[in-house]
């Protein structure tokens, strides 16, 4: 009996090993595909775009006087779209690279990081009235009651990646509060059970709750580009980074009132 059992165990082990080897091969192939994809995006798409952008610029600069008003307008349309495509390519690459680096986990002082990011973003809201509150204990949006005005907890995560997350969330908060006389942004974080939850709340234009789930998909936009610029890659990057940390992302919003974006990270470390 025992020998039979051993033989079974050996058989199952061998099967498992084959399966692991097979999955590893598939994973490596997928990694190579992604690598050649981003190479193709960065190289093969950029080359024709460079020709379109540069030759239309030359046409605009050197032949403007030979074109009538409609001809000049048409060139402007080509120019604008060449610039837009350049931004899209840059953003696709940023998205592809957002999750391909090994995470280096470290103790992060979220509050210091948030202040640092705000300083970097300061030129983008120069001349506007923007009030930023940072506090721990309770979540923005009142999802959790509790003591307020404590500092943000420390978290354990990849500093460069979480910096990118905060940069995208805060840049969005600043962008979508542009129509407000006084922009109010609230950054909160707290430990709930065995995870840390962080939120960024704003009193901006908000969004229809039924479209909330689409926000984190790459290149999904809920606003006109003429109203709010951007390709819609920012929240896709946020989701990719938080996924890689084993956390979750979600959002609450209401049109005309504001939006709150949340992310969670496993392993609270207060």
């Amino acid at each position, binding site marked *: 009996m025992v020998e039979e059992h051993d033989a079974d165990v050996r058989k199952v082990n061998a099967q498992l090993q084959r399966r692991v080897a097979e999955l590893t091969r598939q994973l490596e192939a997928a990694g190579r595909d992604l690598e050649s994809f981003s190479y193709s995006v*960065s190289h093969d798409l*950029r*080359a024709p775009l*460079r*020709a379109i*952008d540069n*030759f239309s610029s030359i046409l605009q600069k050197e032949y403007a006087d030979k074109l009538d008003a409609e001809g000049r307008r048409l060139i402007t349309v080509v120019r604008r779209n060449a610039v837009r495509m350049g931004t899209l390519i840059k953003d696709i690459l940023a998205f592809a690279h957002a999750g391909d680096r090994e995470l280096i986990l470290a103790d992060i002082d979220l509050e210091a990081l948030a202040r640092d990011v705000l300083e970097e973003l300061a030129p983008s809201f120069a001349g506007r009235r923007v009030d930023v509150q940072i506090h721990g204990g309770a979540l923005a949006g009142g999802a959790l009651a509790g003591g307020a005005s404590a500092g943000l907890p420390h978290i354990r995560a990849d500093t460069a990646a979480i910096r990118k997350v905060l940069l995208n969330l805060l840049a969005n908060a600043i962008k979508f509060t542009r129509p407000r006389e006084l922009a109010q942004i609230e950054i909160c974080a707290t430990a709930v059970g065995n995870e840390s939850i962080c939120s960024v709340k704003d009193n901006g234009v908000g969004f229809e709750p039924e479209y909330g789930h689409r926000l984190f998909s790459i290149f999904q936009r809920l606003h006109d580009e003429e109203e709010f610029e951007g390709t819609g890659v920012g929240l896709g990057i946020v989701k990719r980074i938080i996924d890689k940390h084993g956390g979750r992302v979600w959002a609450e919003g209401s049109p005309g009132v504001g939006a709150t974006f949340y992310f969670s990270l496993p392993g609270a470390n207060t």
Partner: protein
Amino acid sequence: MVDAQHEVEILLIEDSPEDAELTIRVLKEQNLANRLVWLKNGALALDFLFGRGTYATRNVVETPRLVLLDLSLPKVGGLEVLRQLKVDPRTRKIPVVVLSSSTQDKDILRTYDLGVNSYISKPVHFEEFAQVVTQMGLYWMLINKPPKES
């Protein structure tokens, strides 16, 4: 373009006619393209530099002052051209500037391992492209001091 028998200042190795035209156009505006030769693939470039094939009668001692090299080239790739240039004592001192669409760290690292003198990733947009090529041209042709055989 000049007769290959005369001294060549810049050798441009670039397979895309559009990129070549843009590069030459910018260099011309700075008066840097008077003695420029443009070759479309790596095999031809090696023939030119080592005086073989079509360029069998060329005096190899008259090396160009600057080589502008694209990486993705038909026949012989840019990395191989760079490798052969940098191992041959006759050509290893020629400054080679890679002008590539690639911004990948891997590509950049490989060119430096092979001894490239500068790596420039070609900007997509017009103003930036013109500025980068202008600065590069002025630096290598006017500011940089090349080695002289005594």
